[in-house]
């Protein structure tokens, strides 16, 4: 401490102390990552091989097959010819402007991240809805995940796992999982109390209540969460490209450093196109489930 009054200056650790703290923590984490880095990497190996397999699947399939599959998916989910046509045109243009491969890479990482986010997010949301204590613990963690600058949590991930797909996926999930958790929690909490009571009164077990009543009735909200999760993971594409994730983010990064305006714009538009397509598909699916609930209204 300096000899200045604590009234005029905020009490502050001196530089040596700060340095010591940083050194100790950095050192500890470094030795932790040296010690366990390999085994943690090994733990993620199956995920990595799945990622690579999925990316290769998209890249190696003929372009018309991929577009056809996406069009069918869009139609089944939305039952809208307009949207289906939009999907076909958008992907055709993406290919036409030479961004096909990067788009496939981005799509593969987005889809895998979203699937993982749903797999972890929905159960976490459910457990939050069931217990106020879990909710009070998880909510601040979600707040941190959403507000902490992505670069900050990229550092330890990269230290531990190096650069590449896995840290990219982890970064994307950390950034994109909160909405699906929050909205699953909200959706289940908003389920009409009397409907749930009716299920209980007819002797439904907790599992029957969860899968027969709560999740189906929370579906519109869960879908909204999934929609948001997809949007946010697309937003992470550029940042993830900084740690070596291939895809539409890398040309954008390249155009920032080299001031290639058109290249940046085209790739940016491709990201936007992906976002709009996935948003419309998931929203119209949610709307269709909602229609049954509201009937003719």
């Amino acid at each position, binding site marked *: 401490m300096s000899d200045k009054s604590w009234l005029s200056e905020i009490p502050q650790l001196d530089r040596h102390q700060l340095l010591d703290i940083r050194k100790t923590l950095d050192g500890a984490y470094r030795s932790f990552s040296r010690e366990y880095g390999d085994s943690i990497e090994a733990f993620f190996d199956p995920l990595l091989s799945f990622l690579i397999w999925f990316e290769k699947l998209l890249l190696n399939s003929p372009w018309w097959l991929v577009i056809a599959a996406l069009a069918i998916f869009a139609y089944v989910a939305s039952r809208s010819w307009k949207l289906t046509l939009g999907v076909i045109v958008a992907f055709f243009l993406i290919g036409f402007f030479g961004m096909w491969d990067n788009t496939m890479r981005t799509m593969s990482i987005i889809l895998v991240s979203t699937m993982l986010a749903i797999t972890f997010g929905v159960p976490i949301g459910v457990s939050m809805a069931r217990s106020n204590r879990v909710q009070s613990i998880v909510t601040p963690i979600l707040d941190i995940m959403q507000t902490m600058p992505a670069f900050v949590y990229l550092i330890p991930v990269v230290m531990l796992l190096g650069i590449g797909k896995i840290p990219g996926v982890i970064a994307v999930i950390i950034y994109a999982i909160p909405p699906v958790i929050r909205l699953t929690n909200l959706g289940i909490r908003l389920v*009409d109390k*009397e*409907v749930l*009571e*009716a*299920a*209980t*009164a*007819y*002797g*439904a*077990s907790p599992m*029957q209540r969860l899968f*027969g*009543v709560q999740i*189906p*009735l929370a*579906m519109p909200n869960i879908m909204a969460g999934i929609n948001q999760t997809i949007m946010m993971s697309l937003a992470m594409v550029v940042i993830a490209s900084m740690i070596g994730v291939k895809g539409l983010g890398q040309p954008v990064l390249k155009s920032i450093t080299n001031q290639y305006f058109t290249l940046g714009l085209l790739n940016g538009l491709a990201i936007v196109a992906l976002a709009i397509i996935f948003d419309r598909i998931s929203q119209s699916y949610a709307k269709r*489930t909602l229609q*049954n*609930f*509201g*009937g*003719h*209204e």
Partner: protein
Amino acid sequence: MSTTENKVPLIRIKKLYKVFGKNEKKVLEQVKAGKSKEAILAETGHTVGLADINLDIYPGEIFVIMGLSGSGKSTLIRHFNRLIEPTAGEIEIAGCDVMKLSEKELQDFRRNKMSMVFQRFGLMPHRTVLQNITYGLQVQGIKKKERELHGQEWLETVGLAGYANQYPAQLSGGQQQRVGLARALCTDADILLMDEAFSALDPLIRSEMQDQLIELQDKLHKTIVFITHDLDEALRIGDKIAILRDGILVQQGEPVDILLNPVDDYVEAFVKDVNRARALTVETVMQPQICRISSETIGEAVIQMRKSKQDYGYVINDQGYRGVITQETLEGIEKNDYSKGINASLLEDVPAVQSDALIETVIPEMLDNTHPLPVLNAEGEVEGHLCRSTLAEVLSDQSSSENS
């Protein structure tokens, strides 16, 4: 209104207490000590939901629990299947101590012993009408084919045959509650809990549903616990009525008891707006003594007539009630005709009324005839008579208490 003396109650509730709050058990002592609801709320922040409830409900009856909103009636009905845990007390249903059931046993109990109809219907919006009706069976693990067969039957019974594949939101309120009713009946449980089941419906549909319930009950003989805030409804469908006020049972008994002998101001306030003509049956207000002319000949009839104080008599023979004969007519007959039989030309045609008819329905006949009307029981025997003055008294009693 069956006799219940020698039956065993199907549902028995003893000394049931419910306190809402963090420290139920501790506050319970104060409730038992007789502290008022307001004092407890002010001192401890706990709400007394129910206090010292004792009920016996017999098999096959419609037991109505009535009270204003906040009186604890919905809380009470949720204790029957333990949707709400009591703070203290015993609940015994069909010889089974519900409080001792484990989580699993309770599930089983709810699946098989009771079903429930809800005020806001409680239908599942993501399931079709048929899927809603068969929900109870699905929970029980019954195969789809079998439960749909069963569900279809009930769907027809409640008059929604063509609606199997609609979603609840596509139906009107009345139709939705029919689905709720069919769902409750579909599990074949003996006990039906109905929590303000018809309160959310508009009046016309409501009385339609009440009729349907009564009609179904005649066939099914379930034990129905019915919650309502509407005394007209309670009187219409209830075999027994219990009135709840601030979590305390103030009066229970048959509808007529409640209507004619309210125990306190609260019940009286409830009762005063009731349309008595629609709530009471002829039986409850008729006078039992009558002048009965059962003779074959005019001579004996004259003797019988002289013995009675009235100037008219009801002529009854083997075929039952024939009509009214007046003293005037009898006196007009010459003495040498006394050995003749009483023939139809001497009689005045006064219609009889059924003892279980509502007063409302007999008013027109009452006004058309100067003589009191004979009251017939279900076997067609004359049980008593109903005269204008009695009727006027019963109906005007109401208006006098309204003015007070």
